[in-house]
């Protein structure tokens, strides 16, 4: 079953330089899927902090992606490398509390591609749901609605 059909809640932090018109491109998907998908454009993926990733999970996301430009293609030289290291740190922390590190994942956009953020999100939603819903009850959300 793909992640969209499984009803997994997806949060995508992304470098807004990968899609110059990201604001317009992501709106239709946000309207269609409502709270199942949340986008957080970043000026550079190097802006991401482990705290953002944990707060996303804590707020109900089952899967959090950090989408960066291709390695070696960061406008600020090292932003995507920093994002990779910070995501690894956050993965270590969630493993300490017994959660699978795959709830957090880094995606490098391939160099030279002109994919919009919406197309990329659709591709991610179509992926096999390898991780289930996060086994974390979120206050105000019914557990049953969040199960596969």
């Amino acid at each position: 079953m793909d992640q969209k059909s499984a009803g997994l809640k997806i949060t995508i932090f992304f470098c807004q330089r990968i899609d110059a018109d990201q604001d317009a491109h992501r709106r239709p998907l946000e309207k269609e899927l409502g709270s199942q998908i949340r986008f957080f454009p970043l000026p550079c993926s190097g802006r991401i902090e482990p705290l953002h990733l944990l707060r996303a999970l804590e707020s109900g996301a089952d899967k959090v992606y950090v989408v960066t430009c291709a390695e070696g293609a960061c406008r600020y030289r090292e932003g995507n490398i920093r994002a990779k290291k910070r995501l690894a740190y956050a993965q270590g922390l969630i493993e300490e509390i017994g959660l699978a590190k795959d709830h957090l994942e880094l995606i490098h956009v391939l160099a030279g591609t002109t994919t919009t953020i919406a197309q990329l999100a659709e591709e991610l939603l179509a992926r096999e749901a390898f991780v289930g819903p996060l086994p974390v009850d979120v206050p105000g959300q019914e557990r049953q609605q969040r199960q596969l």
Partner: protein
Amino acid sequence: MITAERKPLSEFKEMIAPYRKVLVVGCGSCVAECAAGGEKEVGLLASALRMDARTEGRDLEIKEMTLDRQCVYEFIDQLTEFIDQYDVVLSLGCGAGVQAVAEVFPRAIIVPALNTTFVGETKEAGLWVENCRGCGDCKLGFFAAVCPITGCAKGLFNGPCGGSQDGKCEVDSDTPCAWQLIITRLEESGRMNLLDKVYPPADWSKQQGRGPRKIVREDQKI
């Protein structure tokens, strides 16, 4: 700066497990600089603990606070209005901070979340290096501001040992030889005469063997 590292979560989780209301207290000074116990780390740890509790179906209430300094009464006093409302304090301060909070609130249960490690400097983003042992008998003035106790693996006052290679310590090839640094700097500043003298062993009684050390300054007292 005092440096510290977070303990494995399992270590202090066990200690706070009997309690439902946890006050997570960080420190905005040294341990914030070394990314172990500042506001960000408090948020990160609190978030992980909340998720952990929810995963296990436990009820856990957390309040996050970061004091400017956890080792000074005037800042610790900010906890006065909250501390009685919580079952346990999880401190992200250094050992001095943890003990200072416990002394101000002797009935409170204080659990340390950090391992205090050394006095050091920020070499670069993400790298902290020990450079002072707090020996109480500083000799940096003789050694071109390179501490032979901390920087030399053998702690030699009358070096070099002769074992360094390419300016690196024979004990650890990633560490610069302290005596290479001392001699280079003394040569460059024309002060090699400082090494004509034989330096006696350090007076370790200034560091240890008398219980906790104290500094008393009457002019600073109110």
